[in-house]
């Protein structure tokens, strides 16, 4: 996360760290059920073997030294069949739900965010020299209507219908490498709902270059069917 701030410890208890089998963080992800994690498909390009990955939960520091940390192996990988940048991980066994590990809510199918919604992104990714490296960071900004985001001066038609744009027009804060797969959540009444999976951007925090997130509400049927049948 570029700019933004270090989170209050364990205040985003659905955030997970996706790691290699020897424990190196390389992507984010989101706990959506005690035994299921949502992440970006491009995070799983290195290997199609579930044993190549581990999921860390209940942590605040990237070093994962807290007693609240839970580590899970990955039992199965499921990439979205139409090659959208979204994937499901089934954990070898359920996470223990407690004050540090709580799943996020999912949006209604095809629900759309109204204009000017303010949402939050989190991750242990590259801070591009801003403070807070090594700790879970957060930042918030508005979701930008695709029509505006696709204007020539912004992403010039690159944003697909199943994606959403979020960020500050004049840049300054954004997700970055290592945050991929993590959540973009928006407050709905008193609960956080995950509307986006961090996917791609043109650089990080560049003016006129908001980040692009997979629109989770487009994939609710797929998520449900995979979880129910596995």
């Amino acid at each position, binding site marked *: 996360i570029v700019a933004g701030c270090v989170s209050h410890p364990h205040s985003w208890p659905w955030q997970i760290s996706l790691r290699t089998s020897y424990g190196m963080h390389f992507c984010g992800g989101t706990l959506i059920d005690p035994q299921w994690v949502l992440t970006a498909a491009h995070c799983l390009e290195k290997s199609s073997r579930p044993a190549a990955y581990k999921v860390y939960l209940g942590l605040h520091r990237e070093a994962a030294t807290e007693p609240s940390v839970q580590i899970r192996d990955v039992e199965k990988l499921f990439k979205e069949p139409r090659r959208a940048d979204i994937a499901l991980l089934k954990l070898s066994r359920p996470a223990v739900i407690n004050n540090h590990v709580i799943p996020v809510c999912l949006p209604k199918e095809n629900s*759309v965010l*109204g204009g000017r919604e303010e949402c939050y992104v989190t991750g242990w990714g590259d801070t591009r020299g801003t403070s807070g490296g090594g700790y879970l960071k957060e930042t918030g900004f508005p979701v930008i209507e695709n029509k505006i985001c696709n204007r020539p001066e912004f992403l010039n038609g690159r944003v697909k219908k199943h994606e959403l744009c979020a960020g500050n027009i004049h840049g300054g804060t954004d997700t970055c490498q290592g945050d991929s797969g993590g959540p973009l959540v928006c407050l709905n009444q008193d609960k956080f709902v995950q509307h986006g999976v961090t996917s791609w951007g043109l650089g990080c925090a560049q003016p006129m270059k908001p980040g692009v997130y997979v629109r989770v509400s487009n994939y609710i049927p797929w998520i449900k069917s995979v979880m129910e049948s596995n």
Partner: protein
Amino acid sequence: QGSILDRYVRTEGAWLLNPMKQVYRANSEEECAEKCENEDKFACRDGHLNLHDSKPFFQPNPLAALALTRLKGLESMKGVVYLLECKEGKGVDYRGTEAKTQKGVRCQKWADNDPHKPKYTPEKYPNAGLEENYCRNPDNDDKGPWCYTTDPDTRFDYCNIPECEVECMHCSGENYHGVVAKTVSGFECQRWDSQQPHSHGYLPENFPEKDLKNNYCRNPDGEPRPWCFTTSPTKRWDYCDIPRCTTSPPPPTPGRQCLSGRGEDYRGTVSVTESGNTCQHWNSQSPHRHARTPENYPCQSLDENYCRNPDGEKRPWCYTTNTTARWEYCDIPSCDSTKPEAPDVDVPDQAEVIEECYQGNGVTYRGTASFTLSGKKCQAWSSMSPHRHNKTAENFPNAGLSQNYCRNPDADSRPWCYTTDPSVRWEYCDLKKCDGQGILTVPKPPQTTLETNPECIIENGVDYRGTVAKTARGRTCQEWSSQRPHSHDYFTPTTHPRAGLEKNYCRNPDGDVNGPWCYTTDPRKAWEYCDIPKCPPPQYECGKSKFRPKLCAQR
């Protein structure tokens, strides 16, 4: 034939009031429309529920109820548009709320006899909409809506009501309210309140002032002309072909030489961006090709290469002559750089306007400051416009959320408020800190030990952190850090720091499929399984963290 509703857009929360001061609730939209249609004493009205006003709907004077009690939602029949702040033709149907003559004199109420005894009264002309002191045209006057004036020397005068752009458009069609619903590519427009075939954020309730009705072409976001989402799955949106009006456009709002709000009326001559790049001429397509041309925006004074805000941006901007920077914002001196005008919320008279400050992080601040650091006016906490939010006095009863005063209801670093600028959701307030106190440290989350570890196990209990210290056969467990009576060097707190090997509690440091176990204090029995019940499936509320998130944002 369809239903009677076909001719109305959705009536959300529309209440029906009749002069007899009763409030009628229609049990169905059909019934609502029926009353609007047939019972002329009902006026289906437009407007916005006055969120500030917690008073009940009906007012002492029943007729006033029709005027003051303004309803949510906009009633409109295809082709006939009620209640917009514009007129068609002579404006006999005008039902807007303009209440000043063209000279700016306040209108007299139609029901009053002073200073002028009216010929046209609500009783004699019940269908002419003679409510309050709104401009009307009960006598089909050629010059359009008028009113009796409160100036004893001027009996009546005409009002300045803009022409509805129904079959044509002025400028870029920002005020186009016509019914064209087809794009230049021939596609039928998608309804604004529909998400099929294209999902989008232009929900009518999010842009109430943009008249996003039915599937009519509109220009809610500063495009060169009206557009719509199309019903073709392959074409998300496209422009519409609305002819330009031949009549002269409405008089331009008087320009300013400084920045107020988003600077849409800025007409100064700054032509350098905030980073020092020179602005490209608006009528030039080099080095950057663009659609923000004077032809597309005839009412935005896109003169020369002056900074402007023709399309609802945050503030004035321009394309730059620097090939690597397509466009940038400009630094325009704020009109508010003088003392901000007196906020239009009442400052309690007993409150002496003093240089105000806040203690600590300002959670206890109860002053009346209501401007942000960048000079924007605060939005009232009880209002949901332009920014919807949950920081209301009901949700935060002890936060002093009154009027539009700066407050810190969520223990942020200092008092802040939502701003009245639609493009800036909130900002910190222009307030000094009273004392020399250092920055508050972030509140630590409650210690994790507060968390009760469940006395049950999930799966094989490798995460069990409870306090059972007896084996299934009743033997007492040996301390993990002890070597007596059984010495063991593999499962110790140092070799397995993450296994929770504290005291002599049952644990499962090796992931044994049969669950937690321990060394026993019985010299004859090295170790034994413990008998700990399985946990019920976890009950949890998704999306609710136990530790309050900071919600830091580049607000």
